[in-house]
């Protein structure tokens, strides 16, 4: 997948996890937690959905890599690219 495709895949997941939020205005260099009001349970949902939809494992020490859209893409591109 290209970075653009990975970004779209993450947006799909975020739309399900934060259904009341507008994901079209996400700024890629700003914390997802702050932009979407996510908590730790939501990040576990992101990890679960990456596993279910894309067969990608995110070990717990790597969770901080999911902090922003930019860091997600940086981290996931080698795994999903």
């Amino acid at each position, binding site marked *: 997948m290209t970075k653009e495709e990975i970004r779209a895949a993450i947006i799909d997941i975020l739309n399900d996890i934060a*259904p009341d939020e507008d994901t079209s205005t996400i700024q890629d260099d700003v914390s997802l937690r702050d932009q979407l009001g996510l908590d730790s349970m939501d990040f*576990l949902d992101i990890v679960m959905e990456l596993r279910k939809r894309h067969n990608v494992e995110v070990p717990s020490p790597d969770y901080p890599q999911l902090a922003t859209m930019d860091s997600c893409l940086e981290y996931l591109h080698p795994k999903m690219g």
Partner: protein
Amino acid sequence: MGLQDRIVITGVGLAAPNGNNLSEYRQNLLSGVSGVQDFETRYMGKVHAGVCGFDPLRYQKKKDLRRGTRAGSVAIYCSREAIADSNLELEELDRSRVGVFLGITEHGNVETENEVYNISQHGHDTAFWTHHHNPRTVANNPAGEVTLGLRITGPHYTLGAACAAGNTGIISGVQMLRLGEVDYALAGGISESIHTFGIFASFKAQGALAVHEDPTQASRPYDVDRNGIVVSEGGCVYVLERFEHAQARGAKIYGEVAGYAMNSDASDFVLPLPERQIECMRLALDRAGIEPNQVDIVNTHATATKLGDIQESLAVKEVFRDAPTTYFNNTKSFIGHAMGAAAALELAGNLPAFNDRIVHPTINVNNLDPECGITNLVLNEAREIDRVDYILNNSAGMLGVNAVVIVKRV
């Protein structure tokens, strides 16, 4: 404040299969409108069920619904509606003095079955089991979701009492008020049971799942051709408070909880025992300080199983044998069996009778089973009676749990 405090009902919030608030529900009970429909359930296909139509997004966000349970959602809807109905402003209350006490028949089956199904789609790899499972399935979940949603910081818990749980929730609320633990109790019962196949499959295996070509006629307590239970979801939450307090703030008072009782059959897993039901009703009458002939309406528990209806009828006929002006009805014929919510919903359907003196009927009785021939059973058409001062709400559940609540007109 003490153990003799008079406790009154000052708000009602409900989600019934045939109504999203008390006036809609009551209107449908008086005009014979059923809330039972066909419902698709996993593995079993089409079954009959009582399905609620309230808008869960009225009081919750989509994310709340995704994270929580249907029972939690029903409980939040009913609690918010009850508070609005009681004319209380939640933001102005000391929320550490509000308690939430909700009866449940079961909780966690829906969420567990969903997860078992989910991992079955992934080779039963438990890595796909959700981290939401535990907070969704802890037994206090429905009451806990109310405290989260309404920012209530007083005590909360659920009360597992099978199909008597709705009355048990009310009783617990009364007790906590009398103990001085809270100033307001959100008390009643909740059910999400239709969202798992297991309850339908188990009743079917027991030969106790209702089937009828017309779903609205499937729930037919007392009819010769009854063939079992229609499972329903729903909820009913009351605002309970001390009489003096309610009076001082000029609250609308639906009625006073004049008496209650609970006991146990200690005889069988599923079959109710008339002797113990008799004892339970008599204990509640004693505590209310009234004779059976002072009760104007008895709402029965009958679920439309062959034996259960007969057993309760025996008990009711014994307790009210010298009560010629006591009338009887049954609400499950309209809404099916709302499990943990049943008793609370069934009481609510009768409370307006304090004002209009109308006994809603028991519908779907084409041929009354002579073994259920209770004198003054109000069949198929609502009936106006001379006075309504006391309503007795009878309930019973598996493992032999009985709970009775008597409400008095204020």
